[in-house]
C-alpha cells in the first residue's frame, strides 16, 4: 500500500475553477459515494450494536463452533460466544482506535510538517531529517516491540502509539506543500498585515491544503485500522477487549482454521479490508478533487 497523493500534482487552488461546495463536489464522484457508503455502513453497525444483536459479545453461553443459523446469524466461536455480537461490538473498538490513531498521526503530521517548512533554516533541516528517519524505520516491527513492552494495555494507548509511529509520510507531504505556499503573495500579505505566525500557519496556509490533510487523514485511518488489527491479532493489545483484531487472535488460538470455522475469521478480516477500501476510495476522491487531470480519467 502506497499513498496515492502525489505532492507536486496537488496544487490546491480552488479559486480558479469557480468552485461549487467542495463537499458537494466530493460526493459527485462515484468513488467517494461508494467509499463513504462503506464507511457509514460500518459506523452505523457500530452505533446500533445493541439493536442488531441481543447478545453480550463476551458471554460464553452457547454451544461452541456452531455454523451460522437462524439464532446465530454468524455462528458461534470456539468459546461459545455469538460471532455477530462480537463482530458488531468489535466494530466499535476497531473503528474508534483506527480513527483515533489516524487523527493522532494527522495532528502530529501537521505540526511536524508545517512548522519546519514555515520556519526554515536549521530547524527545518533537523526536523525534516528526523521525519525522513521515522519514515524509513519500519513501523510494524517498531510497533511490535513497543507492544511487547507495554503488554496488555488499553485501546487508547494503542491508538496513540500507532499514531505516533505513523505520522511521517503526512509530515513530509505537508512540508513540501507548505514550502510551496509559504512564498505565495497572500501569505506575504498576511505577514505585512502583522499577523502572528500561528495565524499564518493555521488560518492562511492550512485551509489551502485541506484536501491534502483530508486525504492524509483517510490514509492514516486506513493505516490505523490495519495496525490495530495486526497488534491485536498477535495478542499484543488487550486480548480481553472485543475488536476485529482480537476476534482473529482468538480464532487462531481456538484453531478456527483446523475446525473449518470460516464464519469466525472471515467476517472481521473482510470488514477490515472493506473499511480500508472505503477510506482508500475516499482518499482517491479527495485527491481527484484537487487534481482535475485524474478526474477526467475516472
Amino acid at each position, binding site marked *: 500500500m502506497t*499513498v496515492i497523493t502525489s505532492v507536486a500534482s496537488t496544487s490546491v487552488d480552488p479559486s480558479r475553477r469557480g468552485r461549487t461546495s467542495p463537499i458537494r463536489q466530493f460526493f459527485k464522484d462515484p468513488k467517494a459515494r461508494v467509499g463513504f457508503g462503506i464507511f457509514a455502513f460500518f459506523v452505523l453497525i457500530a452505533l446500533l450494536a445493541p439493536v442488531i444483536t441481543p447478545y453480550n459479545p463476551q458471554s460464553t453461553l452457547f454451544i461452541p463452533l456452531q455454523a451460522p443459523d437462524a439464532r446465530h446469524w454468524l455462528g458461534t466461536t470456539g468459546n461459545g460466544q455469538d460471532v455477530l455480537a462480537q463482530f458488531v461490538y468489535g466494530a466499535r473498538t476497531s473503528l474508534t482506535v483506527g480513527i483515533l490513531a489516524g487523527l493522532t498521526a494527522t495532528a502530529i503530521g501537521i505540526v511536524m510538517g508545517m512548522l519546519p517548512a514555515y520556519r526554515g533554516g536549521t530547524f527545518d533541516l533537523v526536523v525534516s531529517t528526523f521525519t525522513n528517519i521515522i519514515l524509513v*524505520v519500519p513501523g510494524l516491527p517498531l510497533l511490535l516491540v513497543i507492544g511487547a513492552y507495554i503488554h496488555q494495555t488499553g485501546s487508547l494507548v494503542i491508538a496513540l502509539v500507532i499514531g505516533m509511529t505513523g505520522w511521517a509520510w503526512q509530515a513530509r507531504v505537508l512540508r513540501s506543500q507548505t514550502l510551496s505556499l509559504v512564498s505565495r503573495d497572500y501569505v506575504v500579505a498576511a505577514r505585512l498585515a502583522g499577523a502572528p505566525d500561528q495565524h499564518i500557519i493555521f488560518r492562511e496556509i492550512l485551509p489551502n491544503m485541506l484536501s491534502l490533510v483530508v486525504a492524509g487523514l483517510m490514509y492514516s485511518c486506513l493505516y490505523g485500522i490495519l495496525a490495530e488489527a495486526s497488534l491485536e491479532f498477535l495478542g499484543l493489545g488487550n486480548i480481553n477487549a472485543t475488536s476485529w483484531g482480537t476476534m482473529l487472535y482468538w480464532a487462531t488460538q481456538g484453531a478456527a482454521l483446523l475446525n473449518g470455522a470460516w464464519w469466525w475469521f472471515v467476517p472481521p478480516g473482510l470488514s477490515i479490508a472493506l473499511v480500508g477500501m472505503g477510506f482508500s476510495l475516499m482518499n482517491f476522491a479527495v485527491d481527484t478533487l484537487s487534481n482535475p487531470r485524474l478526474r477526467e480519467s475516472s
Partner: protein
Amino acid sequence: MKYVLNRVGFLLISLWAAATINFFLPRMMPGNPVDSLIARFQGRISGSALHAIELQFGITHQPLWFQYLAYLNHLLHGNFGVSLTYYPASVMTVIGNSLPWTLGLAGLSTVISVALGLALGIYSAWHRKGWLANALPTMSTFTAAIPFFWLAMIFVYLLGYLLGWFPTDHAYTSSLVPGINGPFILSVLHHGILPACTIVISSLGGWLMNMRNNMVQILGEDYILFAQAKGVPDRALMLRYAARNAILPIATSFAMSIGFVVGGTLLTEIVFSYPGVGYQLFTAIENSDYPLMQGLFLMIAVSVLLANFAVEMLYGRLDPRVRRSGV
C-alpha cells in the same frame, strides 16, 4: 557525487537513529519489564549471561552515557547478546539462521509485486476505455486494504486445509536435509508459494494505483501530445516517454512502501510459521526474550535502511536531474 554523499550521510544518520531508538526503547518503558524477566531466568542461565542482560537493559548504576557507549561498542563488534529462548545460542546466531529466509521471501515477493504492479498500472492508465483497466484501481483499493495476516489465514484455510494443495507451515519438509539438492529446493519452493502470494497480492495494489496515477498525469502533458503528433509509435510513447517518467516519483515513496512490505512479511511469516525474522520476532515477544527481540528489530531496521539506500542509488542513476543537482 554530491547526491551519493548526501544519501550515504543520511544512511549513516538513520542507522545511528535506529540503534539509538533500540537503546532507549526498553529504558523508556513503564514498569521496567526487564526486572521480571531477570527474576524469571534467575538460576536458569549462567550468572555472567544474566549480568550481560542487566547491562544491556540498563539495570546497573552506570551513567546512561556510559551504557550507551558500551552498547554502541557492542553493536559495532556484532555483539547482540544471548538469546534466552535459544540459550546458550547468541542472538547473532539466531538472526543468521532466520534472516536468509526473510530476505528470500520478502525480496522475491517485492520484485514480483513491484513488476506486476507497475505493469498493471501502465496497462490501466493506457487502456482507459477498457472495463478491466477501469476496474483494476478499484479492485486494488480492496486488495491493498486486506490485512496480510488475514489473507494468509484464508490461503491456509482454502488451499492448505480444504484443498490440500500446499503445505501450511515451515519453509521446507522437516525430514529433508537442507542443501543444494533437487528435493530440498522443490520443497522450499512449494512451501514458499503461499506466503509469497500473500505478500504479492496484498502489496500489489499500492504500486498499481501509484503508477497509474503518475501515468495518467504524464499522459496529459504537452510533450506526450507533441510526441504523439510527431508520430512516435504508441508502444514507445507508452514505455519510453510516459512510463519512464512515471516510475521516477514512485521511487520516493518506496521508502515507506518497503517498510510496509517488511511489516506484512513479518505477519505472513507468523501465520505460516515460516522460520524468518518475523516468526522469530514473534517467538521472542511471546517468550519475553528481550535480547533477541531487540536484536531482530535492529536487524530488520538495518535491512530496510540498506534496501532503501540501494533504491536511492538506483534512482540517482535513473533520474539525471537528481544526479546533477544533488538535491
